[in-house]
């Protein structure tokens, strides 16, 4: 087992996060006070509000050795009660509206919401569906939007780092 452990992951795979000017601008829009409060660590709670699961795959990828989310003090937590940030994917299906609102309500203040993907931002290809509400912002207040279908992990990471002003 130790041979596999040592051979498979050498050299280190973790890469520096890719700068993204678009997201730098988004991050700058967050006020300095918010950044002070967030400090150097973020606990993130993810909620799938009816995504196609494409965005989930890329959120998962943040944990792989190439992106290694936790080295930045960012981690996904199991309970909204432990979370600073709510990351929401999907066009917000009607059937997930209540669960999304309740998860957000369960988070202690101060709290921030990141709408992930074209769906979270503006319903994506599901925009005309009566079964969807249209965007995350229709249910909970959104602080940052990370576009893409799905947004690649490098962009997700850059977005999260922009949220608390670290690159």
């Amino acid at each position: 087992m130790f041979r596999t452990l040592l051979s498979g992951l050498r050299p280190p795979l973790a890469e520096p996060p890719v700068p993204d000017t678009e997201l730098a601008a988004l991050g700058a829009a967050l006020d300095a006070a918010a950044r002070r409060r967030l400090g150097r660590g973020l606990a993130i709670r993810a909620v799938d509000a009816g995504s196609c699961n494409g965005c989930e795959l890329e959120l998962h990828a943040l944990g792989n050795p190439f992106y290694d989310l936790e080295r930045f003090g960012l981690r996904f937590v199991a309970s909204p009660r432990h979370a600073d940030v709510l990351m929401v994917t999907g066009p917000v299906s009607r059937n997930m509206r209540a669960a999304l609102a309740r998860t957000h309500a369960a988070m202690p203040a101060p709290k921030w919401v990141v709408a992930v993907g074209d769906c979270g931002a503006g319903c994506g290809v599901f925009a005309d569906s009566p079964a969807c509400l249209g965007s995350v912002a229709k249910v909970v207040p959104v602080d940052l939007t990370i576009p893409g279908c799905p947004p690649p992990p490098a962009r997700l990471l850059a977005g999260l780092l922009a949220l608390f002003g670290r690159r």
Partner: protein
Amino acid sequence: MSEWEAMAARLAAGEATLLGLWGEPGRVHLAALEDADAAPAIRHLSRDCPDGRYPSIGRLHPAAIRLERAARDLYGLEAEGAPDRRPWLDHGAEPTAYPFLPVTGAGLHQIPVGPVHAGIIEPGHFRFTCDGETVVRLEARLGYAHKGVEALLAGADLPAAARIVGRISGDSTVAYAIAFARAAEAALGTAPPPRAAWLRGLLAELERLANHLGDIGGICNDAAFALMQAHCAALRERVLREAAACFGHRLMMDAVVPGGLAVDLHTGGAVRLLALIAELRARFRGLVRLYDGTVSLQDRTVGTGIVRAGLAARFGAGGYVGRASGRGFDARRTPGYAPYDSLAFEVPTRAQGDVNARVWIRIEEVTESLRLIEQILDRLPEGPVHAKMAAGAGEGIALAEGFRGDVLAWVRIEGTTVARAHLRDPSWFQWPLLEAAIEGNIVADFPLCNKSFNCSYSGPDL
């Protein structure tokens, strides 16, 4: 007896396998494969329901029950004699008011889980009834990701419809796109150029590789063996990056379109992919040894979450869920389609039906996908990758084999727009088996069993 009722009897007798049951306003459809057919072709039946009623298939054949409930929610079609008349996709105004089936007995307690779960997971609700640590009964309630897909598809032009279809279950975007494209091509009598058919195979095998690698790591992680997860996730990432380099998108969304492909393999792509295959082969071998040689891990996966062969056959469970329980069906073989009809590959099966067997099916399929990609690159025809779709009207139906099983696509086209379309996710016939598999296991093994199925929520929620 009508053709419809005769089919219900054959499905119940195990002489045919249900591929799908769906509705549209005033009409109900069914697709099946008949075992007796020498060259199996998809049988498609449909019947008008002027009074909104049709004889229930689920009454005789339980695999149809949830499909009938969905057809009622979406189109108001009543399955006469249906054993379960609760809503399925329609959660109504009060989503928490749902009549779970009663479970009675001394000392039983219930554990409700979801729709929001602890990890980065799709939404669904699981209601466990337990006797101490042991699960006596699990009932899943899905539909949380219902996005009104069929309503969006009706009236969409073909390119817009293809984009939506590619987002019904993002992890299987290629398989869905292939199934839909093949159904649309059948409807309008357009044949995609040979190079497109071969590249579709390449895309589908890359998708299978990426998902199987992710799953093998994920299953081991749910058995508290994070090392495998770290290695497998790195390999998965390598596949996605090569997919982006070769086709312009990590998940290869929107690459397959009716008529062929929207993108050709980027220059230098073949060389990159051959290097990827060599790298994966070298690294994966060690990981398989690691899985096989770690007793504490096997202790969790062997004998856990068993699906009996009879049940897998009755539900027509596809993919690794079916194959791990002895059902060797694979749409690439039956009915079969290009390029697989001219490629050599094995369809692995196992008899045990436990988590371990579902891991091994994936391991063996990784090896087969690597072989397939090599063959495709070796013999890839030259030429265009897209043919203009003929205009006209027609109906088409097709199967495509995704990583978790066969995706069924049916479409009716009028002019240049989709009049109606239906996509049936493999998970429709796998979710019910998870409820059976967990019975008698401990609650703590549910994440492990669930990951070994890795059913789609978004796919069947439509």
